[in-house]
């Protein structure tokens, strides 16, 4: 996906837009550009990460600018494929977030009509189509073009001689910030909050004429009013505040994120949604899928209700006959596969419940019910606090289904437990991992998805190949890969899985792989077999899920720091995957 920003008002628009693009960098960062409207439209764009030095702000004195930061889907990242794109006469400029699925046939038509294409992107067809229909009024032209487009788009368009931005939204997010004599448009609220907390979340089909004095929104040819919401994320939430990386800041926020998420769940509303539920399906991608797996173990144990967990992307290939409840987990609320899964579920007799972090996101319109994680913006691409927040909400659901069984495991002690876990010294473990080429993570029971998540984090940010196995599965093949060069991280804490894990670790050691074990204090047996032992604080069993998760996140983070990786923006990844 990409990030788009537009500004119209009295400030130096280029400065506002460039700052805004930097805030949206987590949505895509392989090329960037802006279009400045003064006497004519000037486009400045380049491949690579955003460099503020590329722009000479003193010379860009305009109150009307649109900008784009890209995560390439069609066309390699380079200067020509970067947005904004313009028409043949350079009188119209446009930025786009989304994919135009029928762009090839549109492009052929336009080529026949004599248009000249400069780039390989799908976006460029939109601006040439607008050129075709343009007769002095940009709004009319865009209105005529929109029905011809198939796919998804959030676009901002400007034209020479017109002091306004035309915006349109269909299946890609777009938010307008209404300030005092100024309007900022953005793919989400983060670039907007520095200027105003009052925002309008646009809906699919909206077409907007944005002027400095205000906006006029129409949908299906009718002028409408949209609700102005006040966003309570503070601007400090989106700043690092003394931490080296956003990921570090977000890892350390998890104690309060967990307790806040638990407290913000409306139990009464939850009881209504869950009444009579006899089976549950959970869909999610990546980290969210792991949260779903943990939920499955807990709900089946405490509430005795069958749960199935599916990758959202696989869901469409074998849709099960659905009754009961479908829970969709997505931090951004925009993950394409998860959205599609909810759409499929609605065709069966399924109640749908979304758990997300972003107000006004697409999933909130598609699912029947929504619970918010309230974790504040997660800027780092790797999910950390959103995972903990998802677990918090899911724990509440399990608690509700099990009629309070889970609470007696005292979720209230989680805050302190997470705080204590964050301070544990893991340097000996980091030293072992940072030189490894492959790392295995093993766990049993509900620690198996915890180890899956640990492996994912290590992969994502340190680029070390890491895989996770349910400990019992290692012997059925993966053992062949073990050697002195493949460290194994084993979760071996007290509980029903303890004794068999100790034996597993002994078997791993017999193959000479170094072992890092996560265990309880005073476990001398474990210290005798493992090379490095990381001890977690004493807590109820369920809370151990949280403390071990946090330790594995820190392990991945510190290893990546030791290797000098670009932590908040890992290579080849985007924050929210809005393509299939």
């Amino acid at each position, binding site marked *: 996906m990409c990030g788009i920003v537009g500004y119209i008002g009295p400030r130096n628009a280029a400065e506002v837009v460039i700052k805004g693009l930097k805030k949206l960098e987590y949505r895509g960062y392989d090329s960037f550009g802006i279009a400045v409207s003064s006497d004519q439209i000037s486009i400045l764009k380049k491949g690579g990460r955003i460099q503020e030095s590329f722009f000479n702000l003193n010379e860009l004195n305009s109150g009307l600018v649109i900008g784009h930061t890209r995560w390439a889907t069609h066309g390699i990242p380079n200067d020509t494929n970067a947005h904004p794109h313009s028409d043949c006469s350079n009188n119209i400029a446009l930025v786009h977030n989304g994919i135009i699925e029928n762009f090839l046939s549109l492009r052929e038509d336009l080529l026949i009509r004599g248009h000249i294409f400069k780039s390989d992107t799908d976006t460029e067809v939109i601006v040439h189509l607008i050129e075709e229909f343009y007769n002095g009024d940009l709004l009319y032209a865009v209105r005529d073009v929109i029905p011809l487009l198939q796919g998804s788009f959030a676009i901002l368009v400007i034209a020479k001689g017109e002091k306004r931005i035309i915006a349109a939204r269909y299946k890609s997010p777009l938010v307008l910030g209404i300030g005092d004599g100024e309007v900022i448009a953005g793919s989400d609220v983060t670039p907007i909050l520095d200027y105003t907390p009052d925002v309008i979340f646009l809906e699919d089909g909206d077409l907007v004429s944005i002027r400095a004095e205000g906006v006029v929104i129409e949908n299906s040819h009718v002028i409408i009013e949209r609700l102005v919401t006040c966003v309570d994320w503070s601007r400090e939430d989106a700043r690092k505040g*003394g931490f080296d990386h956003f990921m570090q800041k977000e890892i350390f926020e998890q104690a309060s994120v967990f307790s806040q998420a638990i407290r913000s769940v409306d139990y009464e509303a939850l009881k209504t949604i869950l009444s009579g539920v006899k089976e549950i399906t959970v869909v999610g991608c990546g980290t969210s899928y792991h949260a779903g797996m943990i939920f499955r173990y807990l709900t089946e144990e405490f509430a005795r209700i069958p749960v199935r967990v599916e990758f959202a992307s696989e869901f469409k290939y074998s849709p099960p006959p659905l009754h009961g409840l479908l829970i969709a987990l997505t931090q951004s609320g925009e993950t394409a596969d998860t959205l599609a899964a909810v759409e499929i579920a609605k065709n069966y007799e399924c109640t749908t419940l979304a758990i997300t972090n972003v107000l006004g996101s697409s999933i909130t319109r598609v699912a029947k019910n929504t619970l918010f994680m309230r974790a504040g913006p997660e800027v780092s691409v790797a999910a950390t606090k959103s995972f903990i927040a998802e677990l918090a909400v899911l724990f509440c659901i399990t608690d509700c289904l099990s009629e309070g069984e889970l609470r007696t495991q005292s979720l209230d002690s989680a*805050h302190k437990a997470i705080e204590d876990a964050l301070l544990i010294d893991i340097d000996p473990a980091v030293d072992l991992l940072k030189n490894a080429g492959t790392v295995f993570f093993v766990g049993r029971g509900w620690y198996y998805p915890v180890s899956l998540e640990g492996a994912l984090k290590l992969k994502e940010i340190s680029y070390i190949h890491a895989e996770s196995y349910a400990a019992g599965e290692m012997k059925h093949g993966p053992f062949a890969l073990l050697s002195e060069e493949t460290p194994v991280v084993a979760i071996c804490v007290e509980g029903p899985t303890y004794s068999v894990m100790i034996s597993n670790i002994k078997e791993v050691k017999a193959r000479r792989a170094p072992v890092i074990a996560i265990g309880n204090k005073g476990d001398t047996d474990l210290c005798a077999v493992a090379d490095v032992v990381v001890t977690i604080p004493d807590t109820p069993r369920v809370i151990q899920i949280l403390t071990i998760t946090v330790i594995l996140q820190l392990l991945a983070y510190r290893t990546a720091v030791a290797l000098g990786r670009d932590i908040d923006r890992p290579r080849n990844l985007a924050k929210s995957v809005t393509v299939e």
Partner: protein
Amino acid sequence: MTQAVVLAAGEGRRLRPLTHARPKALIPVANRPIIEYVIESLVKNGIRDITVVVGYRKEQVMRYLNTLDISLNIVIQDKQLGTAHALGCAASSINDRFLLLPGDNYIDYDSIARIKSENNAVLVKENPQPSNFGVVIQKGEYIERIDEKPEIAESFIVSTGIFSLMPSFLDAIRCGTDIPEAISCFIDGGASIRAIPAKDWMDAVYPWDLLTMNEKLITKVSPSRAGIFHRTSIIQGQVRVGKRTKIGPGAVIRGPVIIGEDCNIGPYCCIEPGTSIGDRVSIEPYTFVKDAIIMDSVSIGSHSRIVRSIIGEGCILLDHTSTVSRANMIEIEGKLLKPEFGTILGDSVCSAPFTTFHNCIIGNRTVVEVPGRSLYHMVPDDSRVV
């Protein structure tokens, strides 16, 4: 433009067990961390260029500072090697006259106003226990020297640890590990430091000092009734109640009292003046609380009496808990003291019904397993009372 350097890297060891889970600067007094009062006094005096040096539990401090409206410079002191070293870590951001203050002492707006335009000065105050601090020996209005924690104090005037210094002071910090040593060096090198009387300054050296601090600071709290009050509850005086807090039928709250958010004060409870209650605290019916600091997520059982005490975060005290306020002999870090207080409980202490705490300090995570026990003196962390 006057800058400020706030030292918040230390633990505050003499306040254990309370400083296990938070540095002294973040201990809540009248429901606000001590460092918040320091920053507020600076900001109200128009000082915007503030550097905070963090160390012990730095991520926790940074997270807290990020919630404030003002943007601060954060400097990390990796190893706690003394206050002079801490200032040294921040040296690169100092380019003008600067105020140097500890982040864990209360200081009011007027005191800062008196010192902020002085070139080299220190705020001083009379204190009845001068051997806990740095005693100031003056020559006229300038200081001759500061005697740190002397056995025999030559006067009752002590240094508050709050200085206004010129950048030339930074050369002297290599002289020793602590600021007072550096100050002596600075004076020996020819500098003249004026002694300016402070107005309101409070340093909690020991845990019970926090109760005195709480008593004074709670009077500055502005009343608010954001919670849900039963119509038969009685609220008198300066009372501040946070959002979603429920005050049950027949409860009596006499101010000055501050109660946080999401609390549940049960029917017929009496919350008496001088009490600060944090967030998510649950107090069962018929409980009497007076002159106390109750931290977040605490649960107090019914028919309990909590007087002149500090209850750490996450404590679960079952019914009929009693605190008996006495002044017994106690030894902390080699010093013999006789403070009067009920009890100081660390975090996550769990006690069975009918437990009585007599003038005792109870370590973190202590569990009193059997009902009817009486506890005295000092109990270490992670104890089990059987």
